[in-house]
């Protein structure tokens, strides 16, 4: 394993994704484009798995803590959340149930009970 190779590749694809997203004014987040680029590079053999796997695993494993700062921003929207609580939580629960059950039942039907 060579130090910095993995980080350079991951940040490189991230920057490339952000660049494409803003230069072409796309509504797809640059990070998702970067993921697609890296996936394509892995599948095409331009990037070898062991060049990036340690760094990528470290990012994925430690991702949870990164959700906290954006989530804390909710502090500015407590009023909004209170005034629209029925809409927000109603939609959350109903959408959860519909998506879970319809997806499961459809796929099961499609597979014809293969287990």
């Amino acid at each position: 394993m060579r130090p910095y190779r993995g980080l350079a590749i991951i940040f490189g694809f991230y920057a490339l994704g952000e660049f494409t997203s803003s230069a072409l004014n796309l509504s797809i987040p640059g990070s998702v484009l970067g993921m697609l680029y890296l996936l394509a590079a892995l599948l095409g053999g331009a990037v070898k798995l062991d060049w990036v796997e340690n760094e990528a695993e470290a990012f994925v494993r430690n991702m949870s803590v990164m959700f906290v700062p954006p989530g804390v921003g909710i502090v500015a929207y407590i009023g909004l959340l209170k005034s629209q609580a029925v809409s927000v939580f109603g939609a959350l629960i109903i959408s959860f149930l519909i998506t879970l059950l319809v997806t499961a039942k459809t796929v099961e039907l499609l597979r014809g009970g293969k287990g």
Partner: protein
Amino acid sequence: MNPYGITLTLVVFYAFSELHGRRRTFYTNPVLLSIIVIAAFLWASGYSYESYMESAVILKFLLGPAVVSLAVPVYRSRKVIATYWKEIAAGIAIGGTLAILSAFYTARLLGGSEEVLLSIAPKSVTTAIAIGISEKMGGIPALTAVLVILTGILGNAVGVEILDAAGVRDRIARGLAMGVTSHGLGTARILLDDELAGAVSGLAMALNGIFTSLLLPYLLEILK
């Protein structure tokens, strides 16, 4: 740059992770508990979100390369994709679309404002990608983050039980439904019962993130 925001986040998150390690239940989810405690602290003390974010923004920034890194687990699952590509494609097309439509229309029916509709639409996608989508679409990323985590917690708490009650036994169907609906937290739960369903769930989560970020902008144009 003051160091308080990032320090507070890491210390609080570490403390709740320790708790979660000892009591592994959905209501000890360290992400949600950390958000609640830090938001309550800012609210009570009057310390501004801007001062908090001065250094905490570093953690948020790292979501970018973290999303790029999701390519590695997807690449590793290429054999699973090759075997079950039909089911996966159908599950993501149906589940991904339905998650957006049902959240958007129910929220609208219940009187949600446009910001709320845009923020709730990507709620079934993995948090990092959902925040990115919400930002791009003009939603409130903070609200999206919280709703995504709550959706995950719901799946983690009752998803498997609901699938059991509905009589869904097919392992691929169970994995796909959990991953598409409740992303990482749903995946973590079903992985405890079934390794194959867990692998499919993790894959469904990543692919649904890609699918939703491609579909949602165009779908919203029609819905609005």
